[in-house]
């Protein structure tokens, strides 16, 4: 039982109470029940290529240092000093062997181990009385790295990321495993959007309905050169395990020709064909569908598209972004450019340009999305929004049967539909309801750092 049973019941029936996009109580519940229990993305390994490299990332109120320690291991540590709680690292990117707390000077190695305590003997009685090994920076309760993507979970008892991700893994490989060397990322760009975090997450999960309208200007100026890409109407929506997305229809051909038309070189195509799961190769090569936007629940989205970066050149690009909640009405968007690590510099440069023309705060697609989403959030905070029920039932009849049958000839994992429908948004909200309903985790279990068997030491003599 939760305080939000009415909302959950309504959302499950395909009706969204409008205030869920700007509701402080609900946001507090999301923090405890959604964000504290799910796997959250922090950084990509390529952002910390060398020993000592680090980046600092937030998820809700928590700040984490992602570092590569002196042995080359990736570490994720809670950025809070064990003495009085100061953030030990206040830069967002850099290289260091140690983090020295500015408050009283405790010093930690870049793997989190406490190595220096000022006046250790006089103040604490030395190692006999205060074991430094008991005072390492708190590691993330759980961490997993997939295709170089570093995920953490604040619930140490959560199911492993791979089981949460399930069949979406193949699509993740489409975006982030174009060859044996994987990808590298650039950025991120960060900007504050006065919008609720859910809107971006569910939009990327499969709102193909908005594309022809919101992004009409982009096709009017021929940015994607639609003639080659076909009509959005012929695309699909799929949901597989912990995520879902949409695919874009391609002109007739096979895997090499279809990837060639959107700007991949022969060598890049060959590498993909040898590396991607067969489901992905068949989805593109046989079905003529290429993944476009997608979201892994709760707040990590991906996008692959192509753009004309000059009169004569079409280039594909991939981006990945976090819809990182700040409050019920503000989201920090963190957007990375993602590129095949083995690609040549010229491709990477052109692909970045294509990304930037389309996505990020200045992107010609994304600019218009942001305008819409902030507008929804603003009006969702009022009294009238408490009375308004939004329709999330596209593709369903009144008896809950689907207007169109699921596709039977879809080569990718998961259940897929053609045409238009809010299938994916409903699945995304099912996961959201699941977490709200099961309630918060017991954080007591997870806040203590490991203590040794020395607890029976005399405290005072």
């Amino acid at each position, binding site marked *: 039982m939760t305080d939000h049973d009415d909302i959950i019941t309504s959302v499950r029936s395909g009706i969204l109470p409008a205030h869920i996009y700007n509701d402080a109580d609900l946001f507090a519940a999301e923090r405890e029940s959604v964000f504290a229990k799910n796997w959250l993305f922090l950084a990509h390994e390529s952002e*910390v*290529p*060398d020993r000592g*490299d680090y980046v600092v990332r937030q998820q809700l109120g928590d700040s984490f240092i992602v570092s590569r320690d002196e042995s080359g291991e990736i570490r994720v540590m809670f950025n809070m000093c064990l003495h009085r709680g100061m953030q030990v690292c*206040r*830069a*967002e*990117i*850099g*290289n*260091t062997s140690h983090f020295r707390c500015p408050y009283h000077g405790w010093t930690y190695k870049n793997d989190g181990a406490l190595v220096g305590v000022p006046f250790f003997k006089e103040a604490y009685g030395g190692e006999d009385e205060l074991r430094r090994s008991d005072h390492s920076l708190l590691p993330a309760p759980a961490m997993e790295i997939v295709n170089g993507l570093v995920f953490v979970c604040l619930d140490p008892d959560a199911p492993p990321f791979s089981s949460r991700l399930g069949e979406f893994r193949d699509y993740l490989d489409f975006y982030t495993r174009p060859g044996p060397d994987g990808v590298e990322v*650039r*950025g*991120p*760009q*960060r*900007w*504050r*959007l*006065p*919008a609720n975090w859910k809107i971006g997450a569910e939009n990327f999960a499969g709102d193909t309905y908005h594309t022809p*309208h*919101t992004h*009409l*200007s*982009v096709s*009017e*100026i021929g*940015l994607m050169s639609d003639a080659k890409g076909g009509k959005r109407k012929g695309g699909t929506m799929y949901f597989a395990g912990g995520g879902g997305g949409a695919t874009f229809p391609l002109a007739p051909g096979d895997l090499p020709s279809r990837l060639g038309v959107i700007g991949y070189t022969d060598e890049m195509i060959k590498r993909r064909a040898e590396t991607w799961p067969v489901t992905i190769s068949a989805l593109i090569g046989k079905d003529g569908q290429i993944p476009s936007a997608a979201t892994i629940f709760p707040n990590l989205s991906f996008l692959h598209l192509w753009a004309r*970066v*000059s*009169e004569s050149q079409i280039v594909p690009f991939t981006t990945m972004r976090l819809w990182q909640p700040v409050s019920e009405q503000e989201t*920090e968007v963190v957007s990375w*450019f993602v590129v095949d690590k083995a690609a040549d510099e010229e491709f990477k440069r052109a692909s*970045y*340009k294509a990304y*930037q*023309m389309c996505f*990020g*705060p*200045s992107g*010609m697609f*994304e*600019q*218009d999305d*942001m*305008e*819409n989403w*902030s507008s929804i959030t*603003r009006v969702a905070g009022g009294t009238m929004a408490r009375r308004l029920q939004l329709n999330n039932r596209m593709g369903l009849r009144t008896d809950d049967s689907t207007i169109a049958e699921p596709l039977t000839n879809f080569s990718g994992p998961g259940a897929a539909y053609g045409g238009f429908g809010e299938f994916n948004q409903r699945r995304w909200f099912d996961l959201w309801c699941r977490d709200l309903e099961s309630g918060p985790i017991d954080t007591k279990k997870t806040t203590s750092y490991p203590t040794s068997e020395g607890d029976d030491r005399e405290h005072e003599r």
Partner: protein
Amino acid sequence: MSTSADAGVQYDVGAALSSGDPAHHAAYDFLMAEAQVLDDHDLEQWLDLLCEDVTYRVPVRVTTARGSACDVLGDASHLDEDRYSLGKRIERLRTEHAWAEDPPSRTRHFVTNVRCFATDSPDLLAVTSYLLLFRSRGDARPPDLISGVRSDVLRAQPAGGYRLLRRVVIMDESVLRSQNLAVFL
């Protein structure tokens, strides 16, 4: 870690020109006229102020420890434009479906602290200026404020006057407090 200095156009900058120098006056007039063109949303006229081979870059600013080599990302930017992509952006804003700027923002480009430098090329003038951009949308939402420094290179035109050859804007915030960057800096 991949921060590095911005490469940009290669030229050697000489000493600062006095504010009484005719070249300084010319650069100042250029920037004032440009600000008005931008705030009037006269974007076609703005394009006419740019060289055909213009580059226009707004790199991503990051927070780094004192003593770090750099605090902009060398390989990531909010804008990294040439004449083609700037033209496409303006062409899009001129369609009837560019929601980001419909209704249009009310903007004010405050351009101050102009300094002008001779270069080793007789037709190139290096100009730095501070920018404070005020942007208001809708009725009562908090306005966007973007503060930064521009490093421009102006090229003298055979027919007289200057055009913008290069602009790099270093913003003072690492997190953009603006829903999008649908306006030019």
